């Protein structure tokens, strides 16, 4: 049995984590967070990640990528989640994946190199209305799209958008004449937009019908990984605070009541690592388990993450409730992970259906 990260994977995580330590300290994230109007992303950090090859990870080698697997992308997502990194990773990675899964040779040749290098920024437009996240709920169709999409990550900054449609997946380029409204979203580290299409030119991706479920599952895995990283950081943040904060003449870590609350947070978080690992591995290697595992991972980890951020506020007391403190960055990121792609409840019921219950 060999259910662990390879030397290469450990090295990858290290280099990304080191980069984030240098270029993505909390102060910097707070700065991005504090400019609501044009909250976009940290372009310096993003280009550094591109130089490091992050967007190229899952691009096939013959298209200028590294030809790695979803697991590799997921462990990077975990690192980004741990740092609540304000970068357009989620949409970009999924758009890239969509094209490599479903694009024509021409589409791949045109876009994958640009996406791998980061010269072009991609995103995905999946949801319709308040909860239409799943392919069977997608109504836009044809070579000219009319309709709207909600909670689209960084659409305003994207050069191309992969749109989930009744035909499967379609590609729309920047400036194709759709309107973009930025949502005043809780999570300003990953802004989202509402898109309105009216007779907008779109290229259908030939394999889109088959690929859309794979895309959904990959999205679920990446959200789960991001959630794990964030939750784990919240636990250690709370533990560190308990060791440092003194009341009644001793570190509050001495109070068994609080100790058990911290233990409960750790018990909720640490074991879920194996679940997201498995979901990523299943996507790469166990196709018939992939959707079920992905929905279980998204449900369990986004649920856990949000709860852990609540516990983190309580573990910090008043300071944890302030805008200046890091906790709310994590809580709001957890809120998007919770809602985006559908609530845990939706994914648990999807998993139940897939289990044949």
């Amino acid at each position, binding site marked *: 049995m060999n259910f662990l990260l390879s030397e290469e994977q450990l090295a990858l995580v290290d280099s990304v984590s080191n980069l984030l330590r240098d270029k993505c300290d909390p102060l910097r994230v707070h700065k991005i967070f504090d400019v609501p109007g044009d909250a976009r992303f940290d372009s310096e950090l993003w280009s550094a990640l591109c130089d490091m090859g992050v967007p190229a990870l899952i691009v096939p080698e013959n298209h200028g990528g590294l030809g790695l697997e979803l697991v590799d992308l997921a462990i990077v997502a975990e690192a980004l989640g741990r740092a609540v990194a304000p970068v357009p990773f989620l949409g970009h990675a999924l758009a890239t994946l969509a094209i490599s899964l479903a694009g024509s040779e021409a589409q791949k040749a045109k876009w994958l190199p640009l996406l791998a290098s980061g010269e072009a920024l991609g995103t995905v437009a999946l*949801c319709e209305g*308040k*909860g239409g996240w799943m392919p069977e709920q997608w109504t836009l169709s044809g070579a000219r799209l009319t309709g709207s999409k*909600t*909670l689209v990550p960084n659409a305003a900054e994207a050069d191309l958008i992969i749109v989930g449609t009744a035909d499967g997946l379609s590609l729309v380029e920047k400036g194709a004449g759709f309107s973009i409204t930025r*949502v*005043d*979203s*809780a*999570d300003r580290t990953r802004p*989202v937009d509402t898109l309105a299409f009216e007779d907008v030119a779109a290229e259908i991706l030939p394999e889109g019908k088959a690929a859309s479920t794979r895309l959904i599952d990959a999205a679920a895995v990446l959200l789960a990984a991001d959630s794990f990283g964030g939750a784990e950081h919240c636990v250690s943040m709370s533990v560190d*605070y*308990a060791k440092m*904060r*003194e*009341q*009644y*003449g*001793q570190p*509050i870590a*001495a*109070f*068994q*009541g*609080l100790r058990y609350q911290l233990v409960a947070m750790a018990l909720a978080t640490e074991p879920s690592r194996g679940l997201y690992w498995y979901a990523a591995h299943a996507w790469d290697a166990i196709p018939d388990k992939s959707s079920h595992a992905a929905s279980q991972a998204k449900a369990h980890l986004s649920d856990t993450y949000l709860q852990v951020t*609540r516990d983190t*506020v*309580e*573990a*910090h*007391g*008043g300071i*944890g*409730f*302030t*805008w*200046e403190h890091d*906790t*709310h960055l994590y*809580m*709001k990121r957890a*809120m*998007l992970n*919770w*809602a*985006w792609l*559908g*609530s845990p*409840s*939706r994914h648990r019921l999807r998993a139940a259906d897939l289990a044949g219950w």
Partner: protein
Amino acid sequence: MELSFGSEFDGFRSEVREFIKANWPPADGNLKSHENERAFVLAGVERGYMHRSIPKAYGGSEQPADIIKAEILREELTKARAPAGRIPGNGLVVPVLLEWGTEEQKQKWIAPTLRGDIIWAQGFSEPNAGSDLASLRTKAELSADGSKWIINGQKIWTTHGHKATHMFCLVRTEPDAPKHAGISYLLVDIRQPGVTVRPLVQMTRQKEFSEVFFDNAETPADMLVGERGKGWNVTRSTLKHERSGIATMTWSLSMFRDLVKLAKEVERDGQPAIKHPRIREELAAIEGQLMSLTYSTYRATSHDVHGRDIGTFQTMPKVYMTELAGRISKLARDIVENDFVDMSGERLKWIERFMISLSMSIAGGTSNIQRNIIAERSLGLPRDKNPGAPA
């Protein structure tokens, strides 16, 4: 057993209604004007409806304590959205002045406070003195000529810091005395150069609290309430005066009513969310807890009215409601789904409640402090050597 207030109070209630009808909303329709509020409250005092526990001599209406009448007044004034003459900080300082103030202090401060001409901020917590208040460091030194106090230090979680004109605060006046001793209760005009008020933004984007910095701020020597170094006992009495259980309970009830409304409004799988078995059952489970809180509160109030011991329930409402508010806001989250991230959307109130349900577990003694109190006072467990809590 009898749940209604009893017919003997019907008369009182209709009097109150008439009074409100006659005086609110004000003739000019301006609900925000301080003048109008003030006039209404003064009229209320005339009638013995407001500031009932305060002697006439200091601008109160000096009425015998009557929980039921007080509750009827609260209900009717709330219904009519009329001012109750209650300003949070002020409600905390007046009882202290009555109990500990000199005659001069009472004369000088109580009446204008009741009229709302003065607004008080509470200055207790400090960055390193949260649940462990006694470790506060802000110090006040008497000037050479003994005429005034010179104050230096920092307060945090100051309520209404931005609206307030004055602050009642705890400061260390006897640096060499042990923890609890050496603390005094001072009144300070905070509209002075030596005082900087910095609003604390919360994760909800709201600004409910402030940080207040004292840099050689001054206050006259006679602004000391109670004895020098005895401020700790003075506060103890402050903390007694809190919202009645019924008010607390009503707050949860209205939050729950909103939740039911939400569950009926929002569609899920082609029908109202309230028809979804899991949501429906969780809603009913929450109602079961809420009914427990509600009727145990009526029970407690009745015991109060009849001078019977409330028993172990006394210490419980705050944590119970805090946990209930968390449960309510999580179910609301499950119902609104995508709207849960839209801070300008129609469900903002629920996003705020999702967060505020946490601040409830912090403000005025964290939930863990509350648990310590329950353990000692209600369960009679031996005093905890480690009474700790994060805040």
